């Protein structure tokens, strides 16, 4: 019996557990066709699914214009207080601006994680240009969400995330999409088994059957984080992947929000929303406060 699964089977918002999305976006890019890309539509779908908050980065920022994109995120946080946690995007191809932009973002309320996209920025995840970012994140224990995909293009392989994480043991590194493809997922799991500060992101449009079950079996529910990749993809499949996994509701609760909540609580960032989210943490009896 799973109360979470019963709700998802019925198409109802997930209640009784805290749901925080570690991987979402606003805006759109690459001229890919989309009608809905704004924070309001994202919040609407979050309500439908029972997602309390989402870490968002801007599609513009992971594309050509980091600062303008990061500003879009700040505006969304301002417009929708407590629903969004900002993911500060950095681009190592602009080394003179990178740390200054990161510090600017981290000085703003409710910016809580760092997002890197080695593929779109065409810079290897384990390249030296990211080192100033890793140093800051290591010192302040700020989670880093790193896009990864596939069997490797020299930029964003899960083993490159492993090299970064192993060199910075206090910095939580979230393997974005957990590598995406079947090979990428297997590599992500292998890396996470070797390096304890690596975390697996469930958010990907490659919805492999049994993926969440495999993640939990291999690395434990404590290092799996719920992500959607909204608005690139749709939210319902991502919630359902966790809800339908053949694991216990306690493990689902860890994945859906508690693990990320713990990471955010350890990070030295300015998160006014953290207390609100902690207040929605389910009690030991399992009753949520939604």
């Amino acid at each position: 019996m799973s109360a979470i699964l019963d709700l998802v089977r019925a198409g109802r918002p997930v209640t009784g557990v805290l749901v925080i999305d570690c991987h979402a976006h606003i805006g759109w890019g690459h001229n890919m066709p989309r009608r809905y890309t704004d924070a309001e539509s994202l919040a609407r779908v979050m309500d439908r699914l029972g997602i309390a908050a989402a870490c968002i980065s801007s599609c513009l920022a992971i594309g050509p214009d980091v600062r303008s994109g990061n500003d879009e995120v700040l505006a969304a946080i301002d417009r929708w207080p407590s629903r969004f946690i900002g993911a500060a995007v950095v681009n190592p191809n602009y080394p003179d601006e990178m740390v200054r932009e990161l510090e600017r973002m981290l000085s703003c309320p409710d910016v809580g994680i760092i997002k890197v996209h080695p593929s779109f920025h065409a810079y290897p995840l384990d390249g030296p240009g990211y080192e100033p970012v890793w140093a800051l994140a290591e010192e302040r224990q700020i989670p880093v969400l790193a896009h990864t995909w596939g069997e490797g293009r020299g930029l964003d392989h899960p083993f490159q995330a492993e090299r970064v994480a192993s060199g910075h043991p206090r910095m939580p590194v979230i393997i974005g999409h957990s590598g995406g493809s079947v090979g990428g997922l297997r590599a992500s799991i292998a890396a996470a088994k070797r390096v304890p500060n690596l975390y697996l992101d469930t958010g990907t449009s490659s919805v492999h059957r049994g993926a969440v079950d495999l993640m939990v079996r291999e690395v434990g529910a404590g290092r799996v984080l719920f992500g959607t990749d909204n608005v690139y993809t749709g939210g319902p499949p991502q919630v359902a992947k966790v809800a339908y996994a053949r694991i216990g509701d306690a493990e689902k609760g860890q994945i859906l929000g508690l693990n990320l909540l713990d990471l955010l609580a350890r990070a030295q960032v300015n998160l006014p929303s953290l207390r609100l989210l902690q207040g929605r943490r389910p009690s030991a009896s399992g009753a949520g406060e939604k």
Partner: protein
Amino acid sequence: MSGPALELMGMIDDLGFFDCNARLGPVPVPGVGGWVDRDQLLAEMEYFGIAETLVVSTYAKEHLADSGNERLMADTAGFPTLHPCWVLFPAYPGIDGPEEDRIDRMLARGVRAARLYPNPTNEILDESENPRQYVLHEAVVGPLLTALAARRVPLLLDLDQVRWEEVYDLCTRYPRLPIVLTAVHYSHKRSLFAGFARFPNLRAEISGYHVHLGLEEVCAEFGPERMLFGTRIPSFTPASAVAMVRYADVGPEAQRKIAGDNLRQLLGQVEV
């Protein structure tokens, strides 16, 4: 079981999910969850609340179509919730008989849908590396598609098998032939919507259609009749497509159409 739990359980089957995209049998490159046999497929259908499934044999797709189709018939016989979908190839000169006779035999066996796999052992359409066995040109597939169109047999095509130009050409040449595109990706939206706007016989399956508010958009623009529920099991988890429909803000009637009634209508209008 409590009252609220019973209420939730009662909602599980109300949409009548009918999966149009499932494969049975061993695969050469297993995904995370491996492959499924008949009993495993039935168990997955029960777990995910799927009432019926249109199923293809991997053996037929990747090895030998005729014997794979026969295996599929044996596997599904006596299981009314499993509906066989045959893999067809254009008739081979001197070996296969007239296309009309082949389709007659297929329909006489109770089969109501077909698939073509011009690229049967590859999952990426890259003809510079992997030439297809045939192209969807009139010279090659004309007689077969004419026979299918005459009986209005739904034709399912994976988008890693065909080109959009071919899809448009088939829709134009065979307006009586229902064409269901499977493995549609969000990057295909411009081509898909152009096809929906021009061709009433074009439909798409949702397993790869991971679009934020995507079903809401298609229903508003083209109506709910154009999208069909499909899971892509054994590769993908059915959880994904089930939730797409279940959470779509399109109203219960549209949900039921996408979940299963669109496919039921297509199979029901085959002229036996």
